[in-house]
């Protein structure tokens, strides 16, 4: 792909991911030798209608969003979802379980009626997505690796195995052995188990692997001492949309 034009779009999310991209500094410069950024709200205001790769951040939370997404899909050769909200529905889908009217009131106050909000969903629930940069927030390294793959004409290498694989290679003491509770066994790897490396747990921000053994993971959580409700909540934090779909 010769110097493709690239556009960034944001939907419901915290824009933490675009910040990550803006923070790429040096790499972004090298990368900008390869790509041309045409619409990037964090860095520039202008929006152009002409782009090859569209990076989309945030989840789709309103019917109006769907129209905008379809427009983007029409114009872009490749659509890349970046960050949990866009790839798996992310934290946004936590609210899917609550009464949507309540959610609207907490978010928009008295104007709630004016906003037509529905269950938060990942981008691929609305339009086909060509590549994913998982994570909440995404990491520079993975963003770069996905962009490199796209520029080389290669399918980005996103693991199909769970975080435990990376965690074992990093020789961490398992969270369960430290009296904590981890959803790494059902979460898609690719982050190099970064949270566990820092002594915490995996919260599941990269979403479920393709064929998770959810029952077994819940059983493990309960065996190690979580209540059934807490085990279910562990799954809700990030897996809300994926679980609903399954």
């Amino acid at each position, binding site marked *: 792909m010769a110097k493709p034009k690239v556009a960034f779009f944001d939907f419901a999310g915290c824009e933490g991911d675009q910040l990550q991209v803006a923070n790429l500094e040096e*790499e972004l410069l*090298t*990368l900008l030798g*390869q790509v041309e950024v045409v619409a990037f709200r964090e860095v520039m205001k202008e929006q152009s209608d002409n782009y090859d790769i569209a990076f989309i951040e945030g989840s789709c939370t309103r019917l109006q969003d769907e129209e905008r997404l379809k427009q983007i899909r029409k114009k872009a050769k490749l659509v890349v979802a970046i960050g949990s909200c866009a790839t798996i529905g992310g934290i946004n889908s936590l609210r899917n379980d609550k009464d949507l009217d309540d959610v609207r009131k907490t978010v928009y106050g008295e104007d709630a009626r004016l906003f037509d909000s529905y269950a938060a969903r990942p981008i691929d629930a609305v339009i086909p997505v060509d590549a994913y940069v998982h994570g909440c927030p995404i990491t520079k390294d993975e963003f*770069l*690796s996905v962009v*490199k793959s796209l*520029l*080389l*004409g*290669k*399918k980005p*290498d996103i693991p*199909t*195995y*769970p975080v*435990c*694989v990376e965690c*074992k*290679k*990093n*020789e*961490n*003491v*398992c969270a*369960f*052995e*430290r009296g904590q509770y981890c959803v*790494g*066994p*059902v979460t898609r790897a690719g982050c190099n188990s970064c949270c566990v490396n820092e*002594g915490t747990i995996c919260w599941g921000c990269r979403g479920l*692997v*393709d*064929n*998770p*053994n959810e*029952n*077994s*993971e819940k*059983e*493990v959580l309960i065996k190690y001492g979580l209540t059934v409700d807490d085990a279910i909540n562990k799954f809700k934090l990030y897996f809300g949309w994926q679980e609903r779909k399954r």
Partner: protein
Amino acid sequence: MRVISKEDFAEFVNALIKDKSLDVVGVKAKGGKFAFGPLESASELRLDYDVTLLPPKKYFFPQRETLVTYDVATGFAAPKTEGVKPLVIIGVHPYDIVALLHMDEIFKETKSDPYYFEKRNASIIIGINIQNMSKYCFAPQMGCAVIDYGYDLMLTDLGNRYAINIGHAKGEELLNKYAKNVTAALARDIQLVGQKKREILSMSKQKFDFSPELIPELLSKTYEESGFWEKHSEKCLACGSCVLVCPTCYCFDVKDSTDLSLERGERIRTWDGCLLEDFAKIASGENFRPTRPTRYRHRYFKKGKYLYDRFGFISCVGCGRCSSNCLPDIANPVKLFNDMYHETQSLGVIIAPAPEPAVEIQTEGNIDYVPKLATIVKKVPMTANETLFEIKLDDGSELGHKPGQFVEVSVFGIGEAPISVSSSPTKKGTFELCVRKLGNVTTKLHTLKEGDKVGIRGPFGNGFDYEFLKGKDLLFVAGGLGIAPLRSLFNYVLDNREKYGRVILLYGCKEPRELLFSEEMLALAKRDDVEFKPTVNWCPENEVWTGNIGVITTLIPQVSFDPESTYAVICGPPIMYKFVIHDLKGRNLPDDHIILSLERRMKCGVGKCGHCQINQIYVCKDGPVFNYSKIKGVPEAL
């Protein structure tokens, strides 16, 4: 046997650390557990540990390791290393030493892995007899808890001093050079060490209900018990923990990683594991071990049967790491084998010890992971998705392949894929690859132009025994892309036509426009020394087809052959074999007259990475060509 006081031992370790020409690692505490790590002082050592998180194999076969570097401008090269410093590893338990000896055998079989042995040969192993045993450890039952081989030095804690057994001259030299006040052991020390060793043998909390020697035979009686494997693997998370922490697991994946220039990068190998979902999945989407039970079963068979048959040892040293790392607690070999034993007993199956396997390990030379640079001299599109590439090695050498062998083709920045050589060895100067666009490498390859560079490793695999086939009648049966490897033999036979008997080619594909080598096929139809029958599964209305319509097996009744003198050579999609073989047997063709070429996921091409395994067989090394009579009993084969 020698003796050294603990103070002097600490001095010895500190002296080793001080010598910057050595790397010194040892067992240290890590978050309530233990791990091998670099030592800054002897005081960090925790020789009273029970088990380390990862085994010391990580020093010889690291989690991530560069095999090859590449640069579009200059090609492929071995990674530059500053030379390997001698590595002293302090505090290795006997079971981990045995595991290293297993790894040595595996990494040296057929061809040696230079990256492994470069580091391994520079290592000095200081073992320690077990003081605390992890509750999952069953090394005593596996005969791996106390040993008198495999180490350079072996320590035994005797309270205020260590007894030292010298296993190798390297160990003795180390003592002479760095240790002070080493004395000869007294009779009571020798006695004490003997006593400690006996105590270790009864420390395990795990109990086998039968003799572990029966494991290989027990396994072979349980392979088909799918209910057994389903029940035991129901909770499997496919997390790979059990294999990633295992001191005798050696499977790896290979990936290319490009830098921001998009022109330079590294080819990296990383630990992989057969429990992971995509381990045996190929680009077409087919997964040869698609379910948890099949993958779960493979691990136990690999440890207890396949490697036993190949090397003569059960590839489990009883460290217990798999058991303690499996969250649903289903990876404990003692538990599984006990269940298996009781199940066979309840079925009245008699388990006798397996006969000693006939171990024939040959090793010759080193593996070369660095591809040779080569040029695409001609590119001929054949169908919408298949192209014939004619390739020339840049160093001017001949590929030197046998019909049926394959090469690993590298595309810069993308990776490597195994592709059969499609041309006959009689063709000199260049060779041909017929490639279908499927995944990363094959798709990118299709975008390359004449004059562009690729990398080539190989030829690999056994190939067809074309000498043996001389004088025989040959019945080629090719389905779709299966023609690619067969063509190398077929063209060889045509070039030596008088040396072979009758030649029949049955070739089928889905529809006329998928027909490969169509011009050559047309020419064949005109020859009278070849019987050629093509077929298509269907013919869409807008295409023309005058030949047979129907799957490949519909051609078999249309040819006559003498089962005595005829050998069938078959290659096609996985689904095809069963049907073709069935029909050929129906025509009285003996099993050993059926020759197949098989496909499996591949990474290394040299019998190391584990991906291509069909039960105990490595397709890349033992195949891809197999005599049906030899593999018909191999359950994963067809």
